[in-house]
């Protein structure tokens, strides 16, 4: 056993609640965040069958506002953000000029001229810096509000009933029963502004609550209390990772990075080449990645031993043709699943593939993503 004790010290505004709840913590992008509250498997299953509540306050929130905001985001990001309606959310990418991915983002349109950009914790400064640099010729203001906002996610089939039952949430503009996937509504919690998105990162129905930091602990408590009859459990980053992996959702630093083009990660649809005008990365995306660039695929294997990030994908003569980016024994499916970048020629030829699991070659099948899809 090697000792994975972390050495970073940023903590969430909900940290004491997690300590009191018996959480163990892990370092994530410089934050001490709950990895689990006892059993990551139980937390995983709770999200699939009832509901889980996650503290993801480490995520970064950047406000973009001003008369030029929509045009600016069309230039700065890969998608056409000017096309989304007020209260709508959109998954997008921040590309570098070479077509690589600086971060993946969720963007909420709050008003005609106001957008709320949610970035990964580890990319907070890269995103804020890139947005500011790209804003030079636009009438827009870029404000990093990450320290002022907390983010709580309630995910799972019971999440809607829990969100509706939470005491203190009032003035919900769009009734949660009517709120569509990837739309948001404003509301109040204890008279403070609250943004609720029907969004998430687990493959289940769910809601994300953006709240000012000083009200976050009370909101967490209200949601936990409302969730009690619905089987809501606090859930940590370990279960969040297996949930998103089953749902085939990429994780920055694993499936996404500045060295991968969106099309390699299966995110070609996120880049809008039909939008007018230039956007950062456009020329590189139009040229496409180098011939033979590896493609992200889903792999499943038999037995119980999972291929994990960094393990080689090989053919039966042992030559390496790819690399696993994420993998685990799927708690829901019961067999190992992995995402991996693999040589496209090998994929096209249908060559049998193996994952080298610490010296043991385990046969792998290429499957469509996601591994798991909920019944709607």
């Amino acid at each position, binding site marked *: *056993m*090697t*000792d*994975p*004790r972390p050495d970073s010290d940023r903590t969430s505004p909900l940290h004491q609640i997690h300590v009191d709840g018996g959480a*163990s913590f892990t370092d994530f992008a410089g934050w001490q965040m709950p*990895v*689990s509250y006892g*059993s*990551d*498997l*139980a937390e*995983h299953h709770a999200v699939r069958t009832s509901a889980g509540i996650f503290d993801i306050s480490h995520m970064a929130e950047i406000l973009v506002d001003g008369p030029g905001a929509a045009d600016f985001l069309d230039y700065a990001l890969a998608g056409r953000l000017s096309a989304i309606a007020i209260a709508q959310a959109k998954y997008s990418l921040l590309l570098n000029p070479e077509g690589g991915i600086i971060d993946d983002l969720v963007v909420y349109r709050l008003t005609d001229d106001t957008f709320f950009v949610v970035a990964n914790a580890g990319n907070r400064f890269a995103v804020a810096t890139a947005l500011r640099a790209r804003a030079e010729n636009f009438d827009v203001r870029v404000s990093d509000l990450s320290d002022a906002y907390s983010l709580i996610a309630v995910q799972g089939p019971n999440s809607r009933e829990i969100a509706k039952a939470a005491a203190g949430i009032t003035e919900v503009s769009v009734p949660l029963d009517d709120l569509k996937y990837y739309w948001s509504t404003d509301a109040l919690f204890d008279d403070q502004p609250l943004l609720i998105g029907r969004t998430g990162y687990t493959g289940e129905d769910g809601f994300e609550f953006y709240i000012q930091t000083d009200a976050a602990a009370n909101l967490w408590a209200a949601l936990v209390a409302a969730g009690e009859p619905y089987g809501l459990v606090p859930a940590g980053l*370990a279960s969040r*990772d*297996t949930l998103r992996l089953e749902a085939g959702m990429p994780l920055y630093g694993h499936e996404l990075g500045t060295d991968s083009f969106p099309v390699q990660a299966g995110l070609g649809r996120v880049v809008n080449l039909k939008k007018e005008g230039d956007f950062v990365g456009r020329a590189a995306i139009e040229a496409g990645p180098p011939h033979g660039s590896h493609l992200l695929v889903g792999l499943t294997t038999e037995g*119980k*031993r*999972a291929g*994990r990030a960094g393990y080689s994908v090989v053919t039966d003569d042992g030559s390496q043709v790819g690399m696993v980016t994420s993998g*685990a*024994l799927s*708690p829901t499916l019961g067999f190992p699943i992995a995402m991996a970048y693999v040589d496209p020629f090998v994929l096209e030829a249908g060559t049998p593939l193996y994952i080298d699991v*610490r010296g043991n070659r385990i046969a792998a099948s290429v499957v469509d993503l996601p591994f798991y899809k909920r019944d709607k």
Partner: protein
Amino acid sequence: MTDQTSLQYTAEHEWILVDGDTATVGITAYAADKLGDVVYVELPKAGSVVSGGTVVGEIESTKSVGELFAPVDGTILEANAAVDADPSLVNSDPFGEGWLIKVTYTALPTLLSFDEYSALIAE
């Protein structure tokens, strides 16, 4: 309930219960907690000759893989079949039902006492 003060420990977060010429080996609650829910164990077969400090097995959780070191030179007497069938025993009872291997040892190295190990994980 195993008396943890009667066990000896390694810096690799394993515990050893010495009884005659047999050492029973498991991982500590601290290690099990750090791993998360254990979903698979790979243990050496009875009769295997092992040398102290070498990797003889694996303990996999959903999120990571831990290595099982042989703490002593010797021969594997038994691997815990119950843990093979139900790896969650490593989490629920790491010092008891979740033991991993029994080794017939030839010599005992210097191991950590309960107090020494407690100090190590408190650092």
